[in-house]
Structures are given as C-alpha cells and as structure tokens.
C-alpha cells in the first residue's frame, strides 16, 4: 500500500475520464441562451456595445466547473474506497483476541467492540476458531469457539471500573488453547502498563503465535485522578496520564453527593509529563459538599475521585466549665465561638455541666473538633478518653481563662508547658500597653490570612520557653509571646489559644480574625479514624462506580470492605471503586492512590511479528456517496451561475418570495389536523336528549321501586312539592323524575327520594354501589320508610325498616343523628322544629355534625357540604301528593291541614338545604359580621 491506500470497485470506469476533453469541447460550444428583448433605441445601444466583445462561449471557469462535475461523477461510479480492509489473519491457528475492558477502555469501548467484531468476521471468513478473553473480567472462558459464540461473548462484555489483570487472563488463554499454537493474537489494549503486564505479554508471545497485533487507541487516552486533598484555599488534585508530547488541559468538575456540579477547576499537563496537579477553587463551605471529582468531558472510573467523610462538614463539640452559660449568653465563653463557627460547622453542645458525663457523650457523637473554653482540671477518666480521642485524630482546641491559668502545670492536654498564672498587659498596675498581634508566621496554618492589626491582647497565659516553642507557635503577639500554640498528638492535634474565648482578655473574639482563625483550625481537622458508624471494621458496598464514572447502587460481586487491616490504597478485584458503608458514614475507595503513575504498555522483545494498529473500527472509507454529493453540489452551483448570468436573480426576487410563501402555506395546511375529521367522530350517544332535558332545570327525583302504588305516590308527591316550591320560592323545579338506580345516570339530581317498599324487589349490589358513588359524589338520598304508624306498638322492625337496614348495610354511612334544634336544616327556608309528613312525630335522621365547639352562641350549625343521607319514617311523599286538581290524595295522621302545610315546609327546607348547603348557616351571622365591621 504505497501512497494513499485507495482501491477502486470498478476501475474500468476510470477510462471515462478520457472523455473529458470531448466534454470540454462540447461545453465550450454551447453558450447559455440569451434572453430576447425588444429594444427600440438599438442604434444607441449599438454605439455602446461596440467596445464590448460578446462572448460566444461559456466563461472558462463555468466550463471547468462542468468538467469537474463530470469527472466527479465518473470517479464516483468507479467506487473508490480509502483504506480498504484486507483479511490478513494468520490461518494456521485459532484467533486469540485479548481485550482490555478496564476503566481506560470505557470512552472508546464501542470502537473496540467493532474492531473485535471485524476480527471475528475475518475469522469467520477464514473459518478459524476464536478465543476471546477480557482482561478486567475475573473469570474468562478462553476455550476456542465459533465466531457466533465469540460475538455473543463480545456483546456481553462491558468495560469495568477496574485495572486489567493481564497475567490471569493470559493464564486463562493458555489453559483454553490447551497446547494449540495460536495463529493471530490480537491484543486490544488500553495502552496502560500494569505491574504484571510485561510478564503476561511475554507468556503470551512465548506461545509462538504467527502474528501478534497490538491494537491501541491513539492519542487522547483518559487521565486518572490520583489524589485530592483539601488545602487551605482550594482543593488540590493530582492526576496522571500516559506521557504525551502535547500539553493537555483538562477540566475538573466537582459534584456533591447528589451529582450536582458545584465547582470547577483546571489541570494542565506539561508536554511529555505524565503527572500534573490542579486546584479547584471554591469556598470552604462548598468544598465540604464535594463528594466526587471528575476530570475531562468523558469521565472514566479512573478519572473520578470519590471523597468520603473526611471532606464533609465538621462536627464541632463545645464544652465550657461554667454552668451558667445559658442564663447570661453574652457572658458565656462559648458565645463568640458559637457565633464564629455556626455557619461553617455542625456545633454540638455538652448536655450536662458534669465533664465526666459530657465528654464521653460528646466523643460518642464523633466530632472532628472539640473546643474547650477555660477548663482547668479535667477529671481523670474523661481526660484519658479525650487524650485517646486526640490520638485517634481529633482536634482539641482549648481557650485559656482564669481556671486554666490556675491549673497545675502537668496538664497533658496542652500543646506547650504553661506557666502558672496569667500575664496582664496594661491596667492600673502595669506599665506595658496591651499588645497587638504580630503577623502570622508564613509557614503556619494561619499564613495567608489578613494581618491582624486591630487586635490587642491585655491578658494571656504564658508558655514556658522551650526549644520547640517557636515551631509550635501559630500566632504570637508583637513582643513574640505565643498567642496560639499547637502540638500534634498521635493522629490528632491540640490547639491552645492563650486568651479567653470571651472578650475579657482581648478583643480577639469580637474581631473577624477570630472567625478566620477558628475556620482554619476546623478546616485542618479531619474525621477521627475508626469512629462512629465506620468503626465496625467491615463495610458493605453502598455505591459503586461504573466504568464511565457514574455512581450506581452496589450490585454484582463487590465484597464488603474489610477495614481491620486499614483502608486499602486502591480498589482491587474484590473491592471495586465506590463508597463503602452506609449513607450516614462511608469510606471512599478509589482506583488510584496517591503517587500512582500511568505508564505506557511495553511489548517485550520477541521474534514474533508485532504489528501495531490503531483502534479505528472500520477504517474503510467509501468515497462514492461523497463524490456523488459533490457532483450534485457542483450541478447546483452551475445552475445558480447560469441563472445569475441569465439575469434571473433580479427577476426571481419577487416571485421567489411569493413561491416561498405558497410553499409555507401548503406545508402549514398539510400539517394542520383535519378539522372535519376531528369532528366526524362526534360523541353523540343515545340518551343525550334526555340528559339535555334534565340539565336545563332542576328536577326532583325519586327511585322507582317497582311497587306501582309507591311509585305513583312518589311522583305525585314530588310534583306537589315542586308546585309548592314554585309558588313559594325562587326555585321552579321541573317535573319529578323517576330514576332506575340500576341504569340511569344519577348525577343530575341534587336529591333523590327513596321510599322503602316491602313489595319491591331488592336492588342489586351494583345499584347500591351506584347509590354509594352518588352519595360520595355530593348527592343526597332521602330514605323514607313510611312506617311511622306501623312502628307504633311494634317496637321497630317493620319490613320497610328491615329493608332499609339491608340496603344501608352495603352503603358507607356516616354517623347519624336526629336533626338537632340548631341544625341549618331547621332554618334553610322556613323556621321549623319538626319535619312531619303524613305522620307527625317521626324524627328526621341526618348526618351527625362534628362535635360542637365552645361557641354555643351560634344559632345554626352546619358541617362542610351537605348531608348525603336523610332518613325519615314520616311518609313525606304521601303528605305532599296531590292529584291534578290540587286535592291531597292522602289524609294526614292525625287529620290536621296544618300538618300538611308543615310537611310542605319541611320539603322546602330539605330541598333548599340540598341546593344551598351551609349558605344559610353563614347567612345567620350577617348581623354579627356587620356589627364587627362597624356598620
């Protein structure tokens, strides 16, 4: 393949190029047709045109363009292909494909799969068995198989958030080959060396394959994050990559535990360098929220660094010796500490003033920092616990005070030896002035903070001079006496402020520097090892990284993390990278540890032919469609040129706009839904006319029981009530409607009258459930057992009552009560105290109102909404029923004309109550409301 690797599918067609001169000659002969115009002042024009040569031919460049188009078409027809693929597998043994499906393979995994697929396809053509082995998988079935089997294996494979284990994989391949000499060995590598890779490759090459192909991705291999540490000003991140000639700048993205971006940074690799450091600048508060850092646009498991509790917001415990803290908060030694740290840390206060209880309970809460304000003598046991806690990594911050000054000098929990008593600067018996602070030492933790000019100290405790006093001093006064000292103890640290935490000895606590200093101290602290929920030693996997750097719930073969031997430096096969523990406390395990470097993979010297190839998938590039596209483009350009030369642009300007508008209109019309079709599927249904009839007026409804007598009484009764309503009220109901509760739509009626009849068939369960739905949907049913007269003497249990009980057994009935005297039903139109029908003295049962509250002065009560059920035995319809002439059908019992009048009034009240709800009960308050408004 010398020069450009181009092959032609139909090279014979290239002879067509010989015809180009002929085409040239033909094209030269045909100028574009001129536009004919009548023009009277031709003689004038002739005078002008004499100087201009009228072209008889097309311009040369137009001809050239057309020739180019012709050449493109001929070339396209000859089907040129760049990088044609050739099947060059060694045919004397099985094809072995070893694929790195490690973290670094994740970004170009698809390309790897297609490269492997091509190899498998070649093997299929050559009828070779195929062995596929994945280096990051723990169990490899590396026995030779068919191409189909290999494809299945390939499709099932996925990149893993792990480092490749090539040696084990080569072992599996050797076992799978079982002594057979392999033909082509293809290694789709991620290009990163592992400790065992040289060995593994040597073993692989020792098998004596006919050909060894190392297929590697080219430049741009993903970097890995190797460490992240919380500095004073920023989060410092180090990363590693395979050394490349070019410089590279990567973006760093910091996310919180929920995956939101909260900060960003930058990381620059120098040319040829494999390691680089970067920073993420973010406020301290924000940095505490960072749970995950990723590098680059396409994160991989190695390019993501998980952070655990050591980065989280610190918990700070506060202890002071005084019990009177709460009574005088401004005098409390903890007041300023509280104010300074509350925005930046979780503060925990001691529960009791008894230190032997307070300190163990605070330590149990696993704080990162304990601040003790002016505590002189600690009891033995808490002191020991505190010391042990500091050794485990806690940071103890102490403030001086009179009690500390008076304490014996052998206190183990101070960073420096203290002199007994305190030093007073200024005051009546002193010549010296209160001392300002010196600048912070540049090497100390306070370096970089603004210089404390306005802070003066008038009293302090003094340290005994010693050799390491200067090293332990974090801040000092202008005369050099230490103000803040600190000492490391085990994994932790003790910090002593030589002044009080309140403003008594200095004005430090009321200055902004106090806040800065405390924040720095808290920032320097870290979680106490082996404390709290993580102390169990065995942590279950909680969230794991996938190969592309996302956090997924733990699954698969991840094993619990055993902390008894310490946190492992990096993730292994048993413990993939991720978060171990629980949501409350977890340990982050990352793929790379501090100081890890990525090295390029080296192939040991061998006499086997080693070919290197890039992972480019199918590199064959078919020119045909592009050539045709270019030819079409050329034709379009030619058309435009001809149009412009013919002066069409000007002519088409107006017409073009109109045509575009027409096209747009057409497209819009086509896109519009067909309105006629939408309406054709009309929703008219049988019974619509009835429904419309019911909707225009209010109708009273009764249940058709099937007992003709009862139904007639109901209809006439409701008609009578309707005419009474029409006469007395603003309501003009239509004719009474009998409803069949099995089938009819009930929703149109505010009130359904349901007389019980022993002779009627029992309604079906579905009918009763329809009634139930009607009542729950806001309708009301008036049950009338009509048995008041039969009730007398029998002691209840008439057939109608039994029927009612049967029906109600299936309904969801609220608690009932007889209508109380202050119920709104007694006032909704007429003022009533009873609800008679044909019978006078039966009660009307109604949904019980909520328990009355204290304001007994309310004249009317109503719950929200309307009672969905009313039960009476008074045979209301019987009292209301009149014939056509207005004569009542049934006499009342006892025969009293006023009783019928009251029965009507009861009906009016019931209907009004149904229609207006608790409006009336609000209405009775109007006088009170007006009075309250001052009218």
């Amino acid at each position: 393949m010398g020069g450009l690797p181009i092959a032609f599918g139909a090279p014979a067609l290239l002879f067509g190029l010989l015809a180009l001169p002929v085409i040239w000659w033909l094209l030269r002969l045909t100028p574009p047709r001129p536009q004919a115009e009548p023009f009277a002042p031709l003689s004038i024009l002739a005078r002008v045109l004499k100087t201009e040569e009228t072209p008889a031919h097309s311009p040369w460049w137009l001809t050239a363009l057309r020739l180019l188009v012709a050449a493109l078409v001929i070339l396209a027809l000859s089907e040129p292909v760049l990088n044609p693929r050739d099947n060059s597998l060694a045919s004397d043994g099985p094809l072995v494909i070893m694929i790195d499906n490690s973290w670094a393979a994740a970004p170009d995994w698809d390309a790897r799969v297609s490269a492997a697929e091509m190899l498998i396809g070649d093997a299929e053509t050559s009828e070779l068995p195929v062995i596929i082995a994945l280096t990051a998988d723990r169990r490899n079935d590396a026995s030779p198989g068919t191409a189909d089997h290999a494809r299945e294996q390939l499709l099932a494979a996925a990149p893993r958030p792990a480092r490749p284990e090539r040696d084990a994989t080569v072992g599996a391949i050797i076992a799978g080959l079982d002594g057979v000499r392999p033909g082509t060995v293809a290694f789709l590598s991620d290009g990163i060396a592992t400790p065992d890779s040289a060995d593994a490759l040597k073993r692989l090459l020792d098998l004596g394959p006919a050909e060894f192909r190392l297929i590697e991705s080219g430049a741009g291999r993903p970097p890995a994050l190797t460490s992240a540490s919380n500095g004073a000003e920023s989060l410092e991140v180090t990363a590693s990559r395979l050394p490349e000639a070019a410089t590279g700048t990567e973006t760093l993205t910091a996310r919180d535990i929920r995956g939101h971006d909260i900060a960003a940074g930058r990381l620059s690799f120098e040319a040829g360098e494999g390691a680089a450091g970067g920073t993420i600048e973010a406020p301290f508060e924000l940095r505490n929220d960072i749970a995950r850092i990723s590098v680059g646009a396409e994160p991989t498991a190695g390019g993501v660094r998980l952070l655990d509790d050591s980065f989280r917001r610190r918990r700070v415990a506060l202890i002071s010796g005084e019990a009177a803290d709460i009574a005088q908060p401004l005098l409390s030694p903890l007041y300023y500490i509280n104010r300074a740290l509350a925005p930046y840390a979780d503060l925990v206060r001691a529960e009791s003033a008894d230190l032997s209880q307070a300190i163990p309970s605070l330590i149990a809460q696993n704080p990162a920092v304990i601040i003790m304000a002016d505590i002189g003598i600690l009891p033995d046991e808490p002191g020991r616990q505190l010391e042990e806690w500091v050794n485990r990594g806690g940071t103890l911050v102490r403030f001086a005070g009179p009690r500390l000054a008076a304490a014996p000098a052998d206190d183990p929990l101070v960073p420096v030896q203290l002199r007994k008593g305190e030093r007073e600067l200024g005051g009546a018996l002193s010549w010296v002035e209160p001392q300002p602070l010196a600048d912070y030492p540049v090497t100390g933790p306070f370096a970089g903070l603004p210089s404390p000019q306005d802070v003066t100290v008038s009293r302090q405790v003094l340290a005994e001079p010693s050799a390491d006093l200067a090293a332990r001093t974090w801040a000092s006064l202008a005369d050099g006496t230490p103000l803040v000292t600190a000492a490391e103890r085990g994994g932790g640290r003790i910090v002593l402020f030589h002044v009080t935490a309140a403003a008594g000895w200095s004005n430090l606590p009321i200055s902004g520097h106090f806040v800065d200093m405390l924040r720095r101290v808290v920032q320097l602290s870290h979680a106490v090892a082996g404390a709290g929920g993580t102390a169990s030693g065995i942590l279950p996997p909680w969230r794991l990284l996938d190969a592309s750097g996302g956090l997924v719930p733990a699954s698969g073969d991840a094993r619990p993390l055993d902390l008894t031997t310490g946190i492992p430096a990096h993730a292994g096969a048993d413990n993939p990278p991720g978060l171990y523990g629980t949501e409350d406390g977890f340990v982050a395990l990352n793929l790379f540890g501090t100081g890890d470097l990525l090295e390029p993979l080296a192939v040991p010297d061998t006499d086997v032919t080693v070919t290197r190839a890039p992972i480019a998938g199918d590199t064959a590039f078919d020119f045909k469609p592009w050539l045709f596209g270019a030819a079409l483009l050329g034709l379009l350009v030619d058309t435009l040129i001809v149009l412009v030369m013919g002066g069409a642009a000007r002519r088409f300007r107006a017409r073009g706009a109109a045509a575009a508008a027409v096209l747009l209109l057409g497209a819009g019309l086509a896109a519009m839904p067909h309105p006629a079709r939408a309406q054709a599927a009309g929703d008219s249904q049988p019974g619509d006319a009835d429904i419309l009839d019911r909707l225009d007026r209010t109708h009273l409804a009764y249940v058709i029981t099937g007992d003709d007598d009862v139904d007639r009484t109901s209809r006439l009764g409701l008609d009578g009530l309707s005419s009474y309503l029409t006469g007395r009220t603003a309501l003009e109901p239509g004719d009474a409607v009998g409803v069949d509760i099995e089938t009819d739509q009930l929703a149109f009626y505010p009130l359904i009258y349901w007389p019980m009849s022993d002779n009627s068939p029992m309604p079906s369960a579905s009918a009763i459930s329809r009634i139930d739905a009607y009542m729950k949907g806001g309708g009301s049913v008036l049950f009338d057992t009509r048995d008041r007269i039969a009730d007398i003497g029998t002691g209840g249990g008439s057939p109608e009552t039994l029927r009612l009980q049967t029906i109600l057994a299936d309904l969801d009935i609220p608690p009932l009560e007889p209508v109380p005297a202050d119920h709104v039903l007694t006032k909704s139109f007429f003022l009533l105290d009873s609800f008679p029908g044909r019978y006078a003295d039966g009660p009307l049962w109604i949904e019980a109102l909520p328990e009355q509250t204290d304001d007994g002065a309310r004249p009317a009560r109503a719950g929200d909404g309307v009672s969905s059920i009313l039960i009476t035995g008074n045979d209301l319809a019987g009292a209301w029923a009149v014939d056509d002439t207005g004569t009542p059908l049934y006499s009342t019992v006892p025969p009293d004309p006023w009783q019928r009048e009251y029965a009507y009034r009861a009906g009016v009240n019931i209907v009004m109550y149904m229609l207006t709800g608790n409006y009336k009960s609000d209405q009775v308050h109007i006088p009170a409301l007006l009075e309250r408004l001052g009218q």
Partner: protein
Amino acid sequence: MAARGQLTQSTTRLDALARARQRAALLPDCLAEARRVANTVIAGWHGRRKRGIGETFWQFRPYVDGESLSRIDWRRSARDDSLYVRDREWEAAHTIWLWADLSPSMHFKSDLGLVSKESRALVLLLAAAELLSRSGERIAFPGVLEPVASRNAAERLAMALSLARSGPAGMPDLGRISRSSEVVLIGDFLDEADTLEGCIAPAARRGIRGHAIEVYDPAEETFPYSGRTEFRDPETGAKLVAGRAETVAADYRRVWLARREAMGAEVRRLGWSFLPHRTDRPASEALAALHGRLSGVPGVMKTEAR
C-alpha cells in the same frame, strides 16, 4: 423567464388594414382617456394673455380720447370721475398641426412603464386635440386630417386616424404648413436616418413655431437589463447580443442622455420647445406642460422636468 419589454402588437403582421383596425380599437380608449386628461388641464386655461377680440373680460383701462364711446364701460366709470374702457382678451383661432409617431418602435412597453409609447402618444395627441378644439382652434394632422374647426375635432381626428390606411411613416412633411400655424410633434424620435432636427429645421426657418414631445419608456432610459440578453429592433429587426447587459447600462444611459440633451438643445435653438415624457408618468403632466407652452406660459407647468 419573461422578457422585460414587449411589443403591444405584433410587428410581423404588416397588414396595414389589420394594424389600422388595431389602432382603431385603441383609439376610443385613448379618446376617453384624452377627455379625462383634458378635463384636468382645462381648469388652467388662460387664453392668449393679451388684449384683443374676444368674449372674456381682460382689463379696465382709462378712456383715451378718440375711441368709440360705445366701448366705455359706464358701470365702472360711474364709480369715480374718470372714464374706463373694458378690454377683452384676445382669442384668435389659428391652426395647430398635431402629429404623433405611430411607427412599430412606438409599440414598445416595458414592465416599468404604464402603457406603450404609442398609447401614450395617442392619448396626448387626442387630448391636445380635444383641448384645442374646445377653445376653438383649428386642428390638423399632416396627411390624415385637413385643418378643421369643430367642437368634436378630436373625435374626427380619431376617426380619421382609424381610417388611415397605413400609419404615416417617418417624420411628417411640414412643407405645406403655413406660417401662422403651430406644430406639435409627439414621438420617440429614435429614427437615425430621419431625425427630428432634420424634419423641423426647414419649417423653423420659415417661422413656424412648434413643440416636440419625446415619449419614451423608462426601460429605454434606465436600461434595467442584466445577464445575457439579445436586443432586437422592432422596426428593422436587427439584433444585438449583450453578454452581460448590466455592464453596458451605465454607458448606455450616458449616451442616451447625451443624445437627448443634444436633440433638445438643437430643437430649442430652432425656436421650438422640447418636452421629454416618460410613460410611467401621468399623461396629464405632459399635457399640462404642452398646454402651458401653447398658451405662451412655458413655466407654468414645468413639473415634468427631471
């Protein structure tokens, strides 16, 4: 791709009768249009602007001894102590020879112009005839209509034109026209061989005054063509192909304007007036200007000057 310009009727049909018929069909429209245009101008009719024999009042002047007593205006004289004579405006009729070019080149109309040049020329011709005959002048068309004084002279001119067997070719023969006449020539004056100046010079030397209205299409002035274009002379049929017409537009405009400038200067030197008129301007504009010239107040309606 439609052409910019068109000929309003085919020039290949040389049948004179057919052309006459077509012209006859055009004439009533032109006549109606001419009346409408004339009505807009008639309001500005100012007579001869000098004292003479006429019907309308011109001025009062003091009575001079020796004049006929009957000429004294007693009503005016009674208002003060002097005697006044009422002068009337001079309204003498004389013959106006009208001529319009009706050659094929006048059939041209581009999409920039409102009407063809011929149509515009006829409208101007008939409108002038209408105007003049209303004010009692005698009008004539060389070779078509002998001088006639009539209220319906415009109609008679139109009739005569429509009946003319063939359009008068070339410039008119002004040799028969008497000295007291005025001449109005309307045309595009594009003929190289038969120029306007050559036509009017002998007449002007005889003292005949006249007015030339050059009717032209906007396309002939602005030359809005572009691209490869073949130009064809409607009279001779000669063809000329411009490779990229837009390149010569500037030159063409320069030559066109220079030619008109030269023609106008020559005509004015001969004592005639020269009026260019573009067909995308209203006809009344040219008519008003012509009327102003005829009435001796050339400055009144000089709105066509561009």
